[in-house]
């Protein structure tokens, strides 16, 4: 008797769509796309059981560049859409992706509450410290003295620290990755997908068009010299004191994830009428 042949394992190519990304040459997001496909191949979840949810911005174009289901919504609300989807359809693997403007500025409130709520999502932020789609304005992670047309001489306001905010808000998995290391990033994304609860991966993804100096990130990025911790206080201290280029999983907690559907039906809708009946 012949045993049924196991289907060939999915390779990263199975997750890459035929559409040519509309990104500038040299954009870090190409590499992140490649890391996402590699990570999904590691997890071996079929493409039609994955949804990539995004908002608006250069990096938010990513859903259509995969063979997964995609949801390209409005600016800043990707986490909200992803939350509704995952709670309603927990058997799907839901990746939420976008940029620093989408996630930390217009969507900043949703970021805080997604961390708190701890729905089993993976949130990938391709952070290039700039608004690229609108041609070069300051984002929440931009340095205060970065000169640009909208804020001549710089914004003068300190930049946002997403990893500390995520940790303080209750994210269950916090990591920093670098687009210049696609295999390392794929590893981190795969871990994030497998980790229960809300997993946040801040990916340094250079914008060589508006921030050409970010080419130097290649020299600055280095593996975190320590193992991941489940102690949030220790993780916070490390993140607050590192040089901003520590790459790796920085915190992995064990908070239980937010409950999802389908709940157990205890009665039919008609049974609900009893409480109205006189």
């Amino acid at each position, binding site marked *: 008797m012949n045993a049924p042949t196991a289907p060939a394992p999915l390779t990263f190519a199975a997750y890459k769509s035929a559409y040519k990304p509309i990104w500038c040459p040299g954009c870090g997001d190409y590499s992140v796309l490649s890391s996402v496909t590699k990570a999904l191949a590691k997890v071996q979840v079929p493409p039609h059981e994955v949804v990539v949810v995004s908002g608006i911005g250069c990096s938010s174009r990513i859903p259509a560049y995969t063979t997964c289901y995609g949801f*390209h*919504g409005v600016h*800043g609300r990707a986490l*909200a*859409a992803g939350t509704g989807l*995952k709670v309603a359809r927990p058997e799907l693997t839901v990746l939420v992706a976008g940029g620093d403007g989408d996630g930390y500025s217009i969507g900043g409130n949703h970021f805080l509450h997604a961390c708190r709520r701890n729905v089993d999502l993976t949130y990938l932020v391709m952070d290039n410290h700039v608004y690229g789609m609108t041609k070069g304005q300051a984002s929440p992670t931009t340095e205060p003295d970065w000169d640009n047309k909208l804020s001549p001489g710089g914004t003068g306001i300190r930049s946002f620290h997403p990893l500390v905010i995520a940790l303080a808000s209750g994210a269950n998995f916090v990591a920093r990755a670098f687009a210049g290391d696609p295999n390392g990033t794929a590893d981190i994304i795969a871990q994030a997908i497998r980790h229960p609860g809300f997993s946040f991966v801040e990916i340094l993804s250079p914008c060589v068009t508006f921030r050409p100096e970010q080419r130097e990130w290649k020299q600055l990025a280095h593996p975190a010299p320590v193992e991941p911790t489940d102690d949030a206080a220790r993780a916070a201290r490390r993140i607050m004191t590192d040089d901003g280029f520590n790459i790796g999983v920085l915190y992995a907690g064990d908070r239980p994830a937010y409950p999802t559907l389908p709940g157990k039906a205890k009665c039919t809708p008609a049974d609900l009428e009893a409480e109205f009946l*006189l």
Partner: protein
Amino acid sequence: MQASVKQAGAADARAARPSISIALAGSGGSGVMTAGTLLLDAAAKAGLYGLMVRTSGPQIRGGEAAALVRLARAPVDSLDDRFDLLLAIDWQNVNRFADEIPLAAASVLVGDPDEGEPPEVFTASGARCVALPFKKTAKAIAGSWTNMVALGVAGTLAGVPAEALAAALSDSWKRGDEALKANLAALQAGVDMAAGIDGMPRLSAGAAAAAKRWQISGNEAAGYGAIRGGVRFVAAYPITPATELLEWMAPALAKVGGTLLQAEDELASVNMAIGASYGGVPSLTATAGPGLALMTEGIGLAVAAEVPIVVVDVMRGGPSTGIPAKSEQSDLAFAVSGLHGDAPRLVVAPTSIADCVATTQWAVHLAEALQSPVIVLSDQFMGQSRAIIDRPADAGYAAARLTAAADTPDYKRYRNTESGVSPMAIPGTKGVVYTADGLEHSEAGIPSSQSRDHRTQLDKRERKLAQHDYGPFWADIEGDGTAAVITFGSTTAAVREAVGRARAQGVAVRLVALRLLAPARPAELAAALEGVARVLVVEQNHGGQLHRYLRAMYDLPGKPASFHRPGPLPLRPGELATAILEWAGVADLEGIAV
């Protein structure tokens, strides 16, 4: 148009009447809402229908409060012109309700002398004042409450039998036998006190009680209608006066295997609902005007990406924070037109508390069938009031979404079908993967700024709503005559009553209550107005929003007249009847009591 209402004479008030109106007032915490709810329950036990409207000052706790109860032999969804009885447990700030609790010379005003004199704003009506010591009486019965004495008085004056009052109290009691005994005694003391008071009208005799009646609020009814329609995911942010809808749905959804998620804001709640619905689960959010304003970008996404969602807007006074706990029909213009771009959407409005069940159920059905957002315009008056209603039959509207089968050859999510509705692939289905997009797109869902794709998709989204057969449920059409009154929402009940009074004066007026407000239904309305020479549009807002909308979207006979008044006071049957008679050309209104 200014309404002037004749006062009914004292003699008329004592005749048998189709309804009796009672206002129970006092400071917050005095228990008037509990007493009002029990009065409603007791009336139902006695075979009556009823409505209880809640009103309170702006304070969250401890302000003045009043339960406005109207009891009748037939279903009742509007408040009358005058109250037959105002009973105040105390008078603290109750004078602020002077406009909300109009009295007549024939009215009875009952207060506790230990709580001071009745305010002049009420006594000026000429109403007869009766002093009864509620507090002292309750104090004499250890463990009893003042509001139960008041309930005994109010119930008896309204003609509700003492046994029904006692049964309503016993059925709702959750605090142990001793305390129940004390409060039943307090109730009976109230019943005894009221025995000597005459001058209250009595209800005319009517048909026997139906077997199955409900006591329900409009918010609960809308929530239940949504669940009947198939909603299993709700995301929402608390807001007055929609919160009770959500608080009712949270445990109810859990019982039927669904869930309610409290979002961080309305931007999140609408996008969460869209995300869940994209995943194939019928979804809803509920809010009021300020929340609806925040949701508009998300609703536009649901239009463009063709994701079904239901948004219940329990309207309150606007603009901005407005008057949060008072009713107004002033979100209509915003609901029918408040999205950027050309964005066809559905807007429906229930016409009564009972109708909140069927209309919300219908909204779920339409959202799912047409892959479109549906805005349900309820309002504070319907949402927060409780009514005795006949059990609404299941309208049978179910969530039925056209979905794509696995491995459909040449699948295109936004295919330009004849109906405009195209099969929606649900994530998890193999071989029909697509990206839902708020960017304009080709039929395949690829972002496109090509003029042909834009035109095709705009046409498709408009066509699917315009061509749908909405059946007879699009409006309630009643009566005949060459004049017609068009209205919508909670105002319908007062208009219906006014039309009835006009008919009693020999003026036949047709009533058209629009349940489907968008898309416009010109052919259906033309048929409904067959033989009608002129139209009066009635609504509760300052700008005449329905009037303007109808004039823009429909060819109406004659020169359409408008009667509109903002909240927070409800439109009353008397002012509407007067308006209708004036409009109908009844020249001499002297001596006509409407």
